[in-house]
């Protein structure tokens, strides 16, 4: 029960889904559509489980008044607001006020805060390239030179300096980059395939935890 059933579940579910890619059969197709849909439902329950962990960690911080507990209050409160307004809206789709409130919450926190974190990357591209791009070795030099050539090819100012920069960067992108990507993709696919096979056939049980 503890060991055999999980391995059987992996094998049966995995094989049915895999088979569906090869064989045209309506029953099989319906079954795999169902399985994937069930996966979404089980995943949805997992979100609850994970959220319990998040809330428990922060409630702990608050109740023990650990440093920064006030931030944990903010986290739990925001979460509670999103959940209550969101679920209320879901259950009362005709309430325009709740809908607008939820939209505002989304548009003015969730969405722009994500763009802000995303935009930090622009700064990090600058500092990482300054810190890391040193011609310490041939390999490091190749990395650096390719990066700079492509930047010069992309920015209009590069073209202003020398009109061949876009040509070079295009060649790097289409020939060398394509070659490297292809080779790496093939390797990753082989590694991923081997991992999947081991798990599907039950040779690898690490994902289910070791021992009892």
């Amino acid at each position, binding site marked *: 029960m*503890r060991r055999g059933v999980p391995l059987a*579940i992996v094998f049966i*579910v*995995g094989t049915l*889904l*895999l088979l569906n*890619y*090869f064989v045209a059969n309506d029953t099989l197709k319906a079954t795999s559509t*169902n*399985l994937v*849909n*069930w*996966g979404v439902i089980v995943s*949805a329950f997992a979100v609850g*489980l994970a*959220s319990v962990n*998040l809330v428990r960690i922060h409630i702990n911080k608050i109740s023990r008044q650990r440093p920064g507990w006030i*931030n944990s209050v*903010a*986290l739990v409160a*925001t979460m509670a607001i*999103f959940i209550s307004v*969101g*679920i209320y809206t*879901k259950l009362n789709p005709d309430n325009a006020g709740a809908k607008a409130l939820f939209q505002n919450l989304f*548009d*003015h926190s969730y969405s*722009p*805060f994500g763009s*802000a974190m995303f935009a*930090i990357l*622009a700064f990090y*591209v600058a500092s990482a390239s300054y810190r890391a791009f040193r011609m310490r070795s*041939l*390999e490091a030099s*190749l*990395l650096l030179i*390719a990066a*700079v*050539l*492509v930047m010069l090819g992309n920015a209009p100012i590069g073209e202003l300096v020398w009109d061949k920069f876009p040509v070079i*960067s295009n060649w790097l*992108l289409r020939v*060398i*980059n394509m*070659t*490297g990507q*292809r*080779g790496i*993709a*093939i*390797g*990753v696919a*082989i590694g*991923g*395939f081997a991992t*999947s*096979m081991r*798990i599907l056939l039950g040779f690898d049980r690490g*994902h289910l935890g070791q021992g009892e």
Partner: protein
Amino acid sequence: MNISTNPWVWFMGIGMLCLFSFIYKENPMYRLFEHIYVGASAGYAVVVNFGNILDRAWTPLTTKGEVNLIIPIILGLLLYTRFFKQIAWVSRWSMSFLVGIGVGISTFGLLQSQLLAQSRAAMVPLIVRGSDGSFILSQSINNIIMVAGVLSVIFYFFFAMEQKGAAKQVSGFGRYVMMITFGVAFGNVAMGRLSLLLGAMSDIFGKWLGILG
């Protein structure tokens, strides 16, 4: 454009600035909005998934009589046996269901669109001729580089082999190709990332403070 009078926009602007302040130093204001953001997104995830359970499981089960949906609901609930030591092992059933899905839907794509499609695309003529039969040097050179490059990159990933002598040279060439590839990838995203920052700046300085625009 003028400075915004919408309190939502103010909240957005202040939040974005506080998150941005991280690049100077981690600070109490960043910490506050980091937690607000995490709370907002974690709450949003709960709402979306509550909707998923309602729309995909509960409603069809109770109104359309799709009885089979009781299975994923039970599997989902079994995940929570983790909170009870004696029966915690039952939650593995649900987890292995998810693992089965992952393995089942990734294997075919790995083989077809990644391994085989890329192998097939690597098969290019080493001598390229135009439609009139004339030899095209530049494309031939490109193709030779591509085939040699792909083979040596794959060769680099041989694990059960000590890479010495000629083997070391081949895999070394593979490594050079990869380094250029990474350089190109790095240089190429600089533009996209700067675009995002410019977008965020126009939100802050345009929409909120009304300086730009």
